[in-house]
């Protein structure tokens, strides 16, 4: 409470201290203050937004997304997430069926051909060649670190047969690498065989200097995976990587660079703290957890950037961020939704609300067939008022009763506050308008009567008769998840005095432990887009082996395998968007009927910047600010 008073005091003080039309501070420098941790600069290793943001500004991909602009004077949302609108970047043309650069063969395999731009220089002096492109993707897939992003290339390039390199190695060599732990022991002959048979044919340089990707089967979002915003598609300078101690491109020794540091120590990658791209900014300086500085690259192949230096400071404490931003010593500031009222309407600060987002964060997941051993979240573990049995959430009526018990509108108004939000109804985010069925009939809404009716039907009336007790966990520090649990607790308990829900906060470590071991009756977590396609969401949410759906217990997993997996595969078997849209809409409808998740409201996107920051490019798939187009001026 003391802190709130202090912050209010700060607000008043800051308000009174500054006036409109303040002189532009540091006109050739952008200072950004935020709080993410950059883990690595290796584009093949990085799989977090903060690291991706650095690579996004320093390195470039073959193709890029069209962006809108959000700045003091305009909000232009003419960005695109459509494959057809992708623009060339290090390629000179975006492949399409129409221009003949995407060709489908009678056996169902495809090629994507990219003519490579000439005269492009890397920051360290090398020139871009088609061989650099081939090397980049081969190096990435062969590195395939645990928990890394390479599944996005391995999956399409293997014809969706594999998600991890070791599975591919096992198949080609006919051995068991024990989930990759024995890959480092492969003989040079085995490595050569695998490389020559599996990896080398996937990305090739043609005699005309183009780069061709070979896909064994259609993978409609393939171009979106390669596009700028995904660091896994950022092009490296082969010679420079070799100079840093990286893989030399030989067929017989790649295993030495496989899964560096077991995927958990970023330093083990030779590119952990060095970076060399073709982008508008070079790395000036990186002090992990403290700051990263970009310097303009004057040899950039397009017009050099307007801003000379970008300083990205990591400041955890909100009050320090607020003061630096309020005084104009920072130009762009990360603001959590609850702090938005403190910056909105302040002189010299522009806040743009209601921007589209690409994620499902949060979403609630019901767990069927709960693990009971040592599980203190299920009370007595039996059908009784003091516990729940393992099969508690196996019943769809019970899941629906919970879905009807959540106050969606109240959550948007009271919790999401001034940022605002919108309802969702299935595993496809609303931003994919072409695949999203906005039919009001498939949204659950707060209705305690319907909830009661469903509760009475659940488990043939047993739930209503005996009552129950279980614990809903949230990870400490996540206020949103706490409120979600409390809303459910209040409304469920109001139905029947025999219904009891305990809400408890635990550290993230315990939360993760309970989630992975399938002990939590209902867990809340979120997913942000890797690439803008519904496939990137239906897999974690509705596939039998999905990241989250795979933890929802055997009954729900069996349901995913029977009903959802075939639909998900069918949506990937065609590149015709209209056909895919029909399938995704079908998935949304059956998701409503099966009610396997609690589809929670999503917060709207927003931007907060000083009024002299112009040219702030916007596309919801961007991991962060793209500084190339940013400049400082009053217009």
């Amino acid at each position, binding site marked *: 409470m*003391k*802190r709130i008073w*202090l912050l209010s*005091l*700060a607000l008043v*003080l800051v308000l009174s*201290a500054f006036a409109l039309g303040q002189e532009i501070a540091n006109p050739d*420098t952008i*200072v950004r203050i935020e709080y993410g*941790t*950059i*883990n*690595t600069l290796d584009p093949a290793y990085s*799989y*977090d937004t903060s690291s991706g943001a650095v690579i996004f500004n320093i390195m470039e991909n073959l193709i890029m997304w069209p962006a809108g602009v959000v700045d003091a004077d305009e909000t232009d949302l003419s960005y695109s997430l459509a494959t057809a609108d992708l623009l060339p970047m290090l390629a000179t043309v975006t492949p399409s069926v129409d221009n003949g650069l995407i060709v489908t063969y009678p056996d169902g395999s495809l090629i994507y051909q990219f003519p490579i731009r000439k005269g492009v220089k890397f920051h360290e002096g090398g020139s871009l060649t088609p061989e650099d492109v081939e090397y980049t993707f081969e190096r990435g897939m062969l590195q395939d670190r*645990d*928990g*890394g992003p390479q*599944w996005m290339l391995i999956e399409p390039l293997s014809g969706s047969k594999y*998600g991890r390199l070791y599975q591919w190695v096992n198949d080609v060599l006919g051995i068991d690498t024990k*989930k*990759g*732990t024995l890959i480092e022991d492969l003989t040079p002959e085995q490595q050569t065989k695998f490389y020559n048979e599996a990896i080398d044919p996937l990305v090739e340089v043609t005699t005309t200097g183009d780069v061709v990707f070979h896909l064994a089967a259609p993978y409609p979002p393939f171009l979106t995976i390669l596009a700028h915003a995904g660091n896994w598609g950022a092009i490296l300078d082969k010679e420079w990587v070799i100079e840093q101690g990286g893989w030399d491109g030989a067929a017989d020794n790649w295993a030495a660079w496989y899964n560096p*540091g*077991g*995927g958990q*120590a*970023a*330093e083990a990658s030779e590119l952990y703290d060095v970076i060399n791209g073709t982008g508008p900014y070079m790395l*000036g*300086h990186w*002090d*992990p*957890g*403290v700051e990263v*500085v970009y310097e303009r690259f004057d040899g950039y192949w397009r017009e050099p950037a307007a801003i000379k*230096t970008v*300083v990205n*400071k990591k*400041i*955890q*404490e909100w*009050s*320090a961020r607020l*003061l*630096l931003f309020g*005084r104009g*010593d920072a130009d762009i500031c990360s603001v959590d939704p609850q702090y938005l009222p403190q910056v909105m309407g302040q002189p010299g600060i522009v806040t743009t609300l209601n921007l589209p987002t690409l994620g499902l964060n949060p979403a609630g997941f019901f767990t069927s067939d709960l693990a009971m051993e040592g599980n203190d979240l299920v009370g007595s573990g039996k059908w009784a008022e003091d516990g729940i049995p393992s099969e508690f959430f196996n019943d769809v009526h019970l899941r629906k009763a919970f879905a009807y018990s959540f106050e969606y509108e109240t959550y948007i108004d009271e919790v999401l506050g001034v940022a605002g939000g919108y309802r969702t109804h299935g595993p496809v985010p609303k931003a994919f308008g072409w695949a999203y069925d906005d039919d009001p009939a498939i949204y659950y809404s707060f209705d305690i009567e319907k909830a009661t009716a469903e509760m009475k039907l659940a488990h043939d009336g047993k739930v209503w008769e005996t009552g129950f007790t279980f614990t809903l966990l949230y990870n400490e520090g996540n206020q949103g998840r706490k409120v979600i649990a409390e809303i459910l607790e209040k409304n469920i308990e109001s139905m029947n005095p025999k219904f009891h829900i305990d809400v408890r906060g635990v*550290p993230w*470590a315990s939360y*993760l*432990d309970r989630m*992975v*071991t399938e002990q939590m009756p209902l867990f809340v*977590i979120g*997913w*942000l887009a890797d690439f803008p396609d519904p496939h990137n969401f239906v897999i*974690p949410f509705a596939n039998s082996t999905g*990241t*989250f759906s795979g933890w929802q217990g055997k009954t729900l997993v069996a349901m995913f395998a029977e009903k959802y997996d075939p639909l998900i595969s069918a949506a990937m078997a065609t590149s015709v968007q209209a056909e895919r849209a029909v399938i995704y809409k079908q998935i949304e409808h059956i998701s409503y009927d099966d009610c396997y998740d609690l589809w929670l409201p999503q917060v709207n996107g927003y931007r907060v910047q000083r009024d002299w920051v112009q040219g702030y490019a916007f596309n919801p798939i961007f991991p962060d600010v793209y500084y190339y187009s940013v400049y400082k001026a009053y217009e």
Partner: protein
Amino acid sequence: MLAYIIRRLLILPVVVLGCIILVFAVMQLLSPYERLSIYCSNPAELKNIDFDVLIERYGLNDPIYSQFADWFWKVMHGELGWSQSAARPVMGAFMRFMPVSAELALWSALPIILGGIWLGSLSAVKHNKPIDHITRIFAITGWSLPTFVAGLLGLFLFYGILGWFPPGQLGLGASAIVRSSQFVSYTGIITLDAVLNWNWYVFGDAVRHLFLPVFTLAYVSWAMLLRVMRASMLETLRQDYVTTARAKGLEERVVIKKHARRNALIPAVTIAGVTVAFLFNGLVITETIFDFHGLGRWAARAAQTFDLPALLGYLLFNGVLIVFANLIVDVMYAYIDPRVRLE
């Protein structure tokens, strides 16, 4: 004296080992999955992490003695491991964050100790006079204010309104100089490096940024030392030998400086030693509010995320620090109090 110091230093490994074993024992209360959480802070990364492979790789299901032996063997070979919370090796994180905390500690120690001792003895000498009351009120308010309140108030007033003392270690211009090839970083302690580089612009900017955190620390830390010193001084001033000194006709200044204060210092030295040790091992709140990337912030984050390699490295440092701080205090006793002989 030398034998005593050597004997005390020999205890060092035992103390450190005790701490480490304790942490290992406590960590066994967590499940292997919980201890893996540090590697899975991003939901997307959960996609293709095989938890069982990781548990086996890190030996998290091995017996505690085996895990301890493994860690100990690596430490003996100079490997402290990787700190996920700092996104760098433990030793690298330590080398980066230690000078920041040390700079804050060095600049804060002098005002805290000298100011506390001076104000405490002044308060005692002017017992129940206005200066005593003012000093006591000053001490009580400092003691009562949580660091984050004092820090935030200072920041709002002196930076938010007046713009004098910004948060962070350096401004944009000085940062650019420190990052440039002309500036040699000898110690990582910016003010010291600035002097060694003969760069007074950087020195001035660093001092400007240090002023508020140092003042905040001094203000909230003075109370303890001041009150102990005051009480001790009052006690000493009532001793017979002080009365005798006065009866001999010695000047009051000499009585206080030579006879009273020196004896009153003994309890204050203990407090000062502990205070300095605490300053050096990092100040979570001060470092967070004023955006100093020091040991305290790192350790707090490591603890929140169960970053075991970081915690063990921090513990090693802390054990050594506390043993040395106590040793220095003991040596100081011998210097201040002729009755104490270290043998």
